[in-house]
């Protein structure tokens, strides 16, 4: 038995160590310091993403590209959507004494908790894409996100102008703070214009095409082909599915007002083709760029805006110049050529406070 135990222990430990080191080839830096922070050493950044989501990935790609140019060493951690993983990741970043932490949070409450821990440890903490719920005195060092309500207002104005009165709204996940704000803004636009509007159906597409299609199928079945004249979908992926649902039902999208948010490359084609009336270019790439600039300023010791909204760029068939790309290489090229506004200091980048 003793021999068995020895054998098993040795073998298992070997497996553990070898596989832990097995990914060595994947890491970009070879001379990583264990305790970092010595003067002149590379800056260590911790970057946490709530889940494996395309949106977050697009932002990460740009941030990484910019960070590499700067010579920063960025550690990427992808969560599984649970708060526990996020908290653990941030705690680990703190143990390693990172020079800065970027966090795309899972929930607002725990995002705020993470910001608090970072503050206590004296590490600059930046919330990306989602706003945390903060404890006074423990706000994050910086935050970049989009003004979802304003996003909704833009869409609402477009729909009202087009004369759409019976709207199908397809949101992401019921009860998720960000999404609700979009709908609020949308309806607010109508109120401001003094026009009546009826939301004939609200569906939830879970942010993905499959869900969007299902929600749209249910909507059409519920109100009938003649029962609506406008569709507001909260993101491009779901819109993809919703358009498919409409086509399957024999409906022509170009005959309806259809609005969305995200403004990905695929949507540019839809808008150009007239299938979709309008979309709002709100890229994670720009968000990531802004947070990068914040950290850059932080390291340099210069002043900078701390809590900002990234730039919303609505577009329609007739107004589609210089849209901000999601694809990293296109983004970096456009950035280099100054094709769109990206500077943190630009007045179009509006500040807000907690």
């Amino acid at each position, binding site marked *: 038995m003793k021999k068995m135990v020895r054998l098993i222990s040795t073998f*298992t*430990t070997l497996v553990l160590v070898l596989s832990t080191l097995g*990914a060595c080839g994947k890491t970009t*830096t070879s001379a990583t310091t264990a305790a970092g922070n010595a003067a002149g050493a590379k800056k260590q950044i911790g970057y946490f993403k709530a889940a494996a989501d395309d949106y977050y990935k697009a932002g990460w790609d740009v941030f990484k590209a910019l960070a590499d140019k700067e010579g920063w060493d960025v550690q990427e951690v992808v969560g599984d959507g649970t708060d526990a993983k996020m908290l653990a990741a941030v705690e680990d970043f703190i*143990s390693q004494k990172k020079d800065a932490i970027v966090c795309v949070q899972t929930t607002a409450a*725990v995002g705020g*908790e993470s910001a608090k821990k970072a503050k206590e*440890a004296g590490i600059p903490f930046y919330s990306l894409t989602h706003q945390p719920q903060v404890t006074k005195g423990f706000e994050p060092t910086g935050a970049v996100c989009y003004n979802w309500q304003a996003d909704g207002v833009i869409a609402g104005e477009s729909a009202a102008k087009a004369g759409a009165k019976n709207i199908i709204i397809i949101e992401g996940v019921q009860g998720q703070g960000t999404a609700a704000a979009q709908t609020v803004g949308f309806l607010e636009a109508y109120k401001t214009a003094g026009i009546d509007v009826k939301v004939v159906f609200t569906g939830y597409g879970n942010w993905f095409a499959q869900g969007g299609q299902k929600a749209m199928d249910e909507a059409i079945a519920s109100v009938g082909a003649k029962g609506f004249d406008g569709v507001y979908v909260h993101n491009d992926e779901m819109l993809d599915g919703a358009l498919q649902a409409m086509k399957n039902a024999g409906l022509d999208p170009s005959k309806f007002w259809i609005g969305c948010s995200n403004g990905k490359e695929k949507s540019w084609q839809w808008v150009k083709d007239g299938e979709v009336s309008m979309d709002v270019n709100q890229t994670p790439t720009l968000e990531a760029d802004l947070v990068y600039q914040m950290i850059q300023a932080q390291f340099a010791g210069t002043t900078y805006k701390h809590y900002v909204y990234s730039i919303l760029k609505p577009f329609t068939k007739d107004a589609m110049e210089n849209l901000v790309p999601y694809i990293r290489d296109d983004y970096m090229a456009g950035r280099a050529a100054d094709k769109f506004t990206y500077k943190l200091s630009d007045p179009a980048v509006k500040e807000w406070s907690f």
Partner: protein
Amino acid sequence: MNQKEVTVHIAKEKKVSIFKRYENSTVTTILISFVLLIAAVQFVIGAIGGNIALPTIISPNNMFNILMQVSVAGLLAVGMTLVMVTGGIDLSVGMLVSLTTIFMAKCVTDWGMSVPLALILGLMVSVFFETLLGFIISRTKVEPFIITLGGMITFQGIALLLCDSREVRLLKGEFDFLKVNFIQGASFNGLNLIIPPYVIIFIAATAVIWALMKYSKYGRRMYAVGSNPHAAFLAGVDVKNMKMSVYSLNGVLVFLASVALNSRLGVAIISGGQGLEIDAIAAVVIGGVAMSGGKGNAWGALIGAILLGTIGNAMSMLKLPGEWQYMVKGAVIIISVVAGSISAMFSVRSASKRKKA
């Protein structure tokens, strides 16, 4: 490679000198060897870069972090030990944690109850549901796997109904009392050291359950039922009620895990307990509890939980892609189970050799 010899050397030393007839020697050896090795690797890499410093994996701050990070799953692992030693299994614990956390959060926020009352009700909720599962399992011939799978899905539904599919924020920090730092003010190398009450509860619960299993009549009956239910029945053990009671006890541990989770996160959400049953079962299996029952103890589960947490932590400290930790964890689980059956095979073979002699 240098590392290999170091591994064998350390493993041998540890095994012979410290752990003689200790049931958990395998998993403890693996944990300690693993940590020391990763530390060695970190140290070497640092030295190459011209930086001599304490490897972060064994920095006090990190080690306390690991304890905090594994406490919730660890408490579930202790409960799972009880269930698995009697030959059962419980897939519902993850979702039951979600349900209980949401329930208690609702109590103090929307339903205006005091925290102590919420705690009592929360305990009743988790014990009630577990007892229900235990009742069905002990009175029917259906596999516990299936019953608790059904339980898992049902609990998810109830939880979603309670919270209306959204998170329940504990804005006033009602559960923060379990998060206070016992060693407030202690720090090492500029980082605060934290030992919150829920870590103490985790360790205490492990000790209590371990003592129950080793030093009581009840514990002996547990092992008998897990090893051979029919023989246990003929030896006068009330097999039916024993099987049910371990699920009830598990309910208490699920409650403790839920309270710990609420205090750690400050928000109750359906994804809170997601996947925790897998972590618990993995920890327990790695810690030496046989899936067939009759073997294992609570300390093994604790060490198994810590080992699982350390794997992910090590990935982070070495800045390796986190995706690898799933493969590594999976490999460890498979090895632990295979090792268990191989050593069983060995003992049967040597037994039959003896018989022939």
